């Protein structure tokens, strides 16, 4: 019985004579886990997925599924499920034929095929669509068929390549929830490649952040959000304020010509980067840690977006609840006070 554990070690991937585009020393995906691979375009996340799928051969390294080395196996012998960004439904086959495709390749009999196709269509809520052609379906329905086609072969591991990014925002949120429910029900290991940090945070058991072909951080959504290891992670996940300066003492850093009361615990003279989430920054008309000038205020439904210049050229982004009476009374260009808790300051590494 396969369970869907993926172990990657010493992986180096590159094309032609160019340097490696992907270097991953160690990455294990546990059975039944939902792992998101998150990163900006060109970070190597699609290359990682294509390497696991077998479309790209690594220069060195081992990929094992349930303890079996699959590094040199062709894609069609790996038995993984794949959902593509463009859905890649066979345009000349009905929905049912699309679903049957993988079952026919496995030489599964007609009766069992019909039964499993029906079940898979039921799982994605398309019971009555078996005889439609792909071009007769909406984007969201095509997405479901693509998912059903991948799960009907009952793979222990399902790879999803930006699979929701071609759907509109509302549909995408619905599919995110549905995908997660299906994943829990089937117990399939899922590796989900995305550039959308919200999607990665809300859906995953763990998030693997890639940048420049390297693993920047691997952890639960909470860890990645609350304890970013590097400035890149802090910025990419949740767009934190990054304050770059030199420690004056343990409780102060200098940024350009200004000094800010930022607790870092670093020795004097050391360069330091501190991340501070915008929702941890409070803006008030009086009383706070630092005085600044409000340069921007925008209403965005459930919160205010604020921008305060706390020293020359040093800006802090803040988020305030719309019910905050203080913020409603502030004037852009006016003087304000900014404060934060020391516990919200995160010293991060530069990438």
């Amino acid at each position, binding site marked *: 019985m396969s369970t869907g554990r993926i172990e990657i070690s010493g992986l180096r991937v590159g094309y032609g004579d160019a340097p490696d585009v992907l270097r991953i020393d160690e990455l294990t995906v546990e059975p039944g886990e939902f792992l998101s691979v998150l990163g900006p375009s060109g970070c190597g996340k699609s290359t990682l997925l294509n390497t696991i*799928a077998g479309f790209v051969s690594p220069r060195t390294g081992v990929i094992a599924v349930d303890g079996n080395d699959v590094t040199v196996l062709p894609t069609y012998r790996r038995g993984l499920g794949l959902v593509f960004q463009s859905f890649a439904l066979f345009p000349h086959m009905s929905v049912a034929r699309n679903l049957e495709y993988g079952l026919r390749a496995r030489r599964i009999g007609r009766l069992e095929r019909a039964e499993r196709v029906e079940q898979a269509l039921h799982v994605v809520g398309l019971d009555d669509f078996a005889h439609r052609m792909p071009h007769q379906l909406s984007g969201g329905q095509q997405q479901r068929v693509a998912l059903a086609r991948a799960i009907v072969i009952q793979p222990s591991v399902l790879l999803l390549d930006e699979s929701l990014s071609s759907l509109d925002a509302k549909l995408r949120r619905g599919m995110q929830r549905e995908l997660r429910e299906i994943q829990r029900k089937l117990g399939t290991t899922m590796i989900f490649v995305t550039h959308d940090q919200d999607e990665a945070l809300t859906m995953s058991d763990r998030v693997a952040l890639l940048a420049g072909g390297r693993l920047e951080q691997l952890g639960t959504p909470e860890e990645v959000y609350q304890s970013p290891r590097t400035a890149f992670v802090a910025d990419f996940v949740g767009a934190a304020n990054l304050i770059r300066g030199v420690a004056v003492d343990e409780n102060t850093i200098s940024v350009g010509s200004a000094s800010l009361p930022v607790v870092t615990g670093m020795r004097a003279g050391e360069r330091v980067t501190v991340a501070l989430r915008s929702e941890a920054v409070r803006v008030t008309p009086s009383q706070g840690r630092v005085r600044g000038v409000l340069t921007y205020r925008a209403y965005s439904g459930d919160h205010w977006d604020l921008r305060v210049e706390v020293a020359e050229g040093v800006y802090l982004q803040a988020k305030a609840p719309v019910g905050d009476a203080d913020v409603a009374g502030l004037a852009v260009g006016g003087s304000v006070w900014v404060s934060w808790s020391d516990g919200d300051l995160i010293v991060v590494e530069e990438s």
Partner: protein
Amino acid sequence: MARGVRPTGRTRGTLLALPATAFLVIVFAFPLVFLLILSFRPTNEYNETLDGFTLDQYVAIFTRDYMSSALLNSLQIAAFTTVACAVLAYPVAWILARSNASVLRTVTFLIVVSPLLTSVVVRSYGWRVILSANGPLNSTLMALGIIDEPVSMLLTQPVVLLTIIHVLLPFAIITLTTALRTIDGTLYRASESLGAGPVRTFVTVTLPLSLPGLLSGAMLVFALALGIYVTPLLVGGANQTLVGLRIYEQVMTLFNQPIGAAFSYVLLAISLVVIAAMTWISRRLEVKRG
């Protein structure tokens, strides 16, 4: 008039298409009508065209063995050529459509179109040189000890077929390349990910999706092969049971123009029927796919 008359988009398009249309009518449609009338004209014992109406030519084509066997043989050759071109074209079209190696693609393309860029005379005499009794092919086979004395390869049907395929293959390859390029590459990946090996992927994805392109290439090859005469004439001589050569002989040697005209119309009719059938099949496929 207060307002000047400004041609609308449609009339402007018609005006622009006029020269080309006029040209086609003069050099193609008129002769075709003239040829049709000619094909029903009776002839005297000196093969001179007379006034009147007769079906003699058409009857002769289907009843006189000399004519009907040429028609049958040409149909067989055209059918065989079409199938052979389709089979041979796939791997080459695949390289042209999907290879990442641009040097390989360019070299392949040049080799593919070279028969079209070479004069038919040069190409055919090239074949003659290679295949002649003291040509390189015979000497190589003798040097290898495969044959003891030169084999007469010219004037044989397989060689004529070979040269026909050589000159018509580019048409099949080019149409097929276009068809293969339009197939979304992720479909191959999807097929592989579902457990299908290369053969299954070809049969269930590549073949059905490239079928419209394959059919249009096949139509072209079939129509061209059916009436082909210069290439077989130069390689295999005039004495072959081919429609093109029979027409040539009737018109240029025996000066019997009505029977040449009738023969041309029979060929045209066969081509049109085959093209109509293939178009119908390809439309059916398109409708299903939407």
